[in-house]
């Protein structure tokens, strides 16, 4: 039903295309006309001040929020139709606190029609956790929880990863490890969108930095400006 063949995804030029995206919350417009094209297989870091609309953009790409006007196309389809190609990691964990990591993934695997524990265990190992860990996710430390949340997002091997502040409240150590993991996924041909306030963490990893401001993409740069953040803070 959707283009789930990775080769075709990488071939298409604009893997994620948004046109004139506007999202209104009552009187307030969180997205004010976002038009952009993103290529497959790249690592995009989305940066911007609080309230710039980063989360709203990511939720719209994931199909969780429908835009007031404008269009989103993911691999040529609507976000809902392309849901098997999208992995989304939100600020909350999207995991059941009362179940262990493996049990969580097992349930989500059913939703995607993935049979067997093999894939679940493989993913848990990929994010650097132990699939045997019986503790419920609610008792994980913040860093472990974020990793498990990432595991849930990549469980069905999506082409496109949307990550919303995966490093917030995470210590430097865990954050660096997650960056390394993401880097390796990018090598494997995935397209990654990552929202963060800690741009310096992505210095060597991201292909492009997308700057948002007041609901618009104001700039796209290949690297962090050398004067960041001092410059932006004046």
């Amino acid at each position, binding site marked *: 039903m959707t283009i789930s063949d990775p080769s075709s995804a990488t071939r298409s030029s604009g893997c994620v295309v948004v046109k004139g995206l506007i999202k209104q919350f009552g009187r307030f417009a969180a997205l004010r006309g976002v038009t952009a094209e993103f290529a497959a297989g790249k690592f995009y870091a989305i940066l911007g001040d609080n309230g710039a609309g980063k989360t709203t953009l990511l939720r719209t790409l*994931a*199909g*969780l*929020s*429908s835009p007031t006007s404008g269009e989103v196309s993911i691999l040529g389809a609507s976000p*809902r139709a392309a*849901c*098997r190609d*999208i992995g*989304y990691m*939100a600020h*909350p*964990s*999207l*995991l*059941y*606190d*009362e*179940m262990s990591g493996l049990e969580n993934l097992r*349930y*989500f695997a*059913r*939703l*995607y*029609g993935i049979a067997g524990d093999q894939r679940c265990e493989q993913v848990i190992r990929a994010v650097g956790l132990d699939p045997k860990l019986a503790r419920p996710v609610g008792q994980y430390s913040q860093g472990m929880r974020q990793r498990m949340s990432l595991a*849930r997002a990549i469980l069905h091997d999506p082409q496109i990863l949307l990550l919303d502040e995966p490093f917030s409240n995470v210590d430097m150590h865990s954050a660096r490890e997650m960056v390394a993991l993401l880097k390796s996924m990018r090598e494997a041909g995935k397209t990654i969108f990552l929202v963060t306030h800690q741009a310096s963490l992505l210095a060597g990893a991201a292909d492009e930095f997308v700057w948002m401001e007041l609901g618009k993409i104001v700039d796209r740069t290949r690297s962090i400006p050398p004067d960041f953040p001092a410059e932006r803070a004046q």
Partner: protein
Amino acid sequence: MNSLWSITLATLAKDIRLEWRSKDALNAMLFFSLLVVVIFSFSFDPLAEESRHIVGGLIWVAFLFAAVVALNQTWARELRNQVLDAYRISPAPANALFLAKAMGNFIFVGLLEALMTPLFIVFYNLRALGPAWQLIPVAVLGTWALVVNGTFFAAMSVRTRSRELMLPLLLFPISIPAVLGMVQATTAILTGEESARFWIVLLLTYDVVFTTACLALFGAILHAE
């Protein structure tokens, strides 16, 4: 269709497993129901002659309040950490989630009723003068009537401010025919004065109509932002 049932069962199994693991909600609900029965018997003298006439109402009002408390918890687990969002972006059909939740609630509320009914019988010295077996279809149809709409409206009310309050506000007006049906059928059976046939048919119609409506419209509710 296949995936609908497989996901329904997976979700139901997960809910039952989690409920069983903590048993907190279950114990609390049982205790709550016991308290409702006790408070009722303090408020409505169980020895009075007329009790056979009011006990149909008592039982179902008690079940209704207990059910509302239980139904309000339906989506609590899915909202914590916004797990519901994970469901929404998955390819799983919306109705699988609805059916699983409604079936879970049916089991839960049915269990409550099965445990409260003996209490009522003991406290109020009940004995049906009509055909007692008819109480079973009344209980099943009545419970499903409460639960199917309750699950649906709980999904609506979690989208609103002051969630807990919203569920009864939506559920009670729509449930009035069902409540009337349950109470009248139960009273008819207990007093043996008239036939409960009409009320059972009414409950059946109610169940069919609203189950269809819920299944047709749940997708719209789930994916409403």
